[in-house]
C-alpha cells in the first residue's frame, strides 16, 4: 500500500450509484483481457449527468475523448457513494481509469466491500462533508498513515476516519492476499 497518494481531485455529489459509475450496457467486456479492460476505464463515470460531473462548476468530463485513463486520481464524493447494483465493475472501472482513493461521507455496503476486498482503491470516509470544500482540479495529498487529506491548492487539511477493521485487508491489497498472509487459503 502506498503511504501517500498525490493527485488531482474529481468532485461528485451525493448518491453516486453504480449505474452512473459504469452503465450496465458496458458490463459485457472481459475483465481479464487487458485490451477490453480499458473499456471500463473509458466508460468510468460516463452516466453522471453532465451538469453534476466535476463539481462545483460541473460539465467537466472525467475521461476526455478516447482515453481510458483520467487525469484525476482522487474522487471526492458525498453520502451513499456507490449505491445500487452490486457490480464490482464499478470500483474496477475507477481503478482502470487511474483512481487510487475515494473520500466520501459514506458508502453503500457492497461498493465499500468490493473496493476493499478486490483491492481496487481505498475508500476513506471523511470526518466531515468535503465535496463542498474541495473543488474539481484541486491538487490533493492523501496520507494513509496520518489519515488526512491535504488540499495543496487551498492549503486546508482535513482529518479522515481510520479504516478500522478493514485496514488489514486494505494493507494486504485485497481479500485474497489477506487470506494467504493469514494462512486461510
Amino acid at each position, binding site marked *: 500500500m502506498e503511504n501517500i497518494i498525490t493527485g488531482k481531485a474529481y468532485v461528485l455529489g451525493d*448518491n453516486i*450509484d453504480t*449505474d*452512473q459509475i459504469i*452503465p*450496465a*450496457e458496458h*458490463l*459485457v*467486456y*472481459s*475483465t*481479464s483481457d487487458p485490451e*477490453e479492460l480499458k473499456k471500463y476505464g473509458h466508460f468510468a463515470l460516463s*452516466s*453522471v*449527468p453532465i451538469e453534476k460531473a466535476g463539481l462545483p462548476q460541473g460539465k467537466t468530463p472525467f475521461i476526455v475523448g478516447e482515453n481510458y485513463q483520467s487525469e484525476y486520481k482522487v474522487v471526492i464524493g458525498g*453520502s*451513499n457513494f456507490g*449505491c*445500487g*447494483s*452490486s*457490480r*464490482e*465493475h464499478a470500483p474496477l472501472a475507477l481503478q482502470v481509469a487511474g483512481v487510487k482513493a475515494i473520500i466520501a461521507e*459514506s*458508502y*453503500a*455496503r*457492497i461498493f465499500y*466491500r*468490493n473496493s476493499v*476486498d*478486490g*483491492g481496487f482503491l481505498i475508500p476513506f470516509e471523511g470526518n466531515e462533508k468535503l465535496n463542498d470544500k474541495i473543488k474539481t482540479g484541486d491538487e490533493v495529498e492523501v496520507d494513509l498513515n496520518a489519515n488526512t487529506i491535504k488540499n495543496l491548492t487551498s492549503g486546508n487539511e482535513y482529518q479522515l476516519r481510520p479504516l478500522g*477493521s478493514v485496514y488489514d485487508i486494505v494493507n494486504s491489497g*485485497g*481479500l*485474497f492476499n489477506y*487470506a494467504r498472509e493469514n494462512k*486461510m*487459503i
Partner: protein
Amino acid sequence: MGMTITEKILAKAAKRANVIPGESVWLDVDVLMTHDVCGPPTIAIWKKEFGEQAKVWDKQKLVIFPDHYIFTKNVHANRNVDILRQFAAEYDLPNYYDVGTERYKGVCHIALAEEGYNVPGTVLFGTDSHTCTSGAFGMFSTGVGNTDAAFILGTGKIWEKIPESIKFTFNGKMPEYLTAKDLILQILGDITTDGATYRAMEFDGEAISGMNMLERMTLTNMAIEGGGMNGIIAVDDVTRNYLKEIGVTQYEEFTSDADAVYHSKYTYDVTKLEPTVAKPHSPDNRATVREVEGTKITKAYVGSCTGGKITDFQYAAKLLLGQKVKVTTFIVPASTQVAKQLEEETISGISLKEIFVNAGCTIAESSCAACLGGPSDTIGRSSDGDVVVSTTNRNFPGRMGSKASQVYLASPLTVAASAVTGELTDPRKFL
C-alpha cells in the same frame, strides 16, 4: 440480551452462541448464486487466485442462472453466457440453468424461490444486489461483488459485519388498491436510499401476515434500495405452505426475541397509505400518485425481480381486462414459470396473456430485460425523452437505458392504470 432473527441466523452460520452488531465474523455459506453479468468475472478471479488448485467448494451449493442479457445480438454479452456454459460443463455443475434449453428459468431471484433454493434459517450470497429478495423466506441473503463471490466459490466462507436491525411493522388489512410495492416505496421515502446502510430490514405486522410469498418478496427485494444489507420476514404458515408445495421440508425457523435490540422501529397503518410512486431519479423520491397525477407518460413496463412475478401480472390484468393501453406497454414475466402461468391463469375466463394481448401490450421473453437498460437491442429499453412508469426497482439516471429519460417507479396497479390513460393515474379510478 435477546437477538433479532438476522443475528440468530448469522450466529448459527458463524458457529457462535451469539453475535453483536458491528463485529465482523466469518460465515459458512449455504448457497452461492451468480449470473451472466458477474459470473464470468467471478470465475476469472477464482481461477487467477486459486490457480491450479481451483476447486468449487460444493457443487450442490453453487447455483447459476443466466438472466441479464439473454435475448441480444451483442457478441460480448453472448460470450458471457458461453463462459458460464463451459464452466458448468467443465466442472459438471448440477445447478446451471442454460439459455435455449428447457432448464432456462429467467430472473435469478424469482427462480431461486421457484426452484427451492430459499431455505429458512440458511445463508445465501449472490453476485447481485437484489439477492436480499430471498430474505422473505426467513433466511439471511445479501449481494456481494465478484471477489467475495470468488472467495466463497473456493472456500465456502466469507466475512460479514453483523448488522443492526430496523423493524418495520405494518398494521391493518391491505386495501385492494395497495400492493407491497406501495409499502416499500413509502418506507424508502421515510428512510431515504442510505437509511438502512449496513443494517437489516425486518418486516412484520398484520398486513405482512396477510401477504402471499411473492408480495413479501417485493418488500425484501427493495431493501437494498434503502441501503439495507438484507430484508427479512420470519417464517409463518404462508411460508410453510409455499415450501411444502415445492417440496422443501427440512429447515430451521428463527424468530426475533421479544427483548431484541433494534436500531429503530417504524410502524404504519396500511389503511392510511395510498398508491405511491418514486419520481425520477431516485427510489426514495416519493410522492403519492395523486400528487403527480396527469403527468404524461410514453411507456409502461411490468417486469423484473421486483415487479415481474405472477402476482404483479394478476394486479395488472385485473385493471387491463377489457381496456386498451394508450402507450407502449411491456409485459416481461420474470421467469419461464411466470410466462407459463400467464397462459394458465384466467380472469373471467380469459387468460392473463390474452388480456394483455387484447389490451395492446407487448409481451417479452423472461429475463431482466430493460430493468437495467442492457445492450442497445434490449426490448423495452428507454430512449431519449421517454417518460416511463415501471414496476421495476431503480430509476437512477440512465438505469433503464437513456440518460435523457425519466422513470417513475410504481405498483403494477398504478402502472396498468397509467398505461390505459397515457398519464400517471391513481388505480382507485379503475377499482
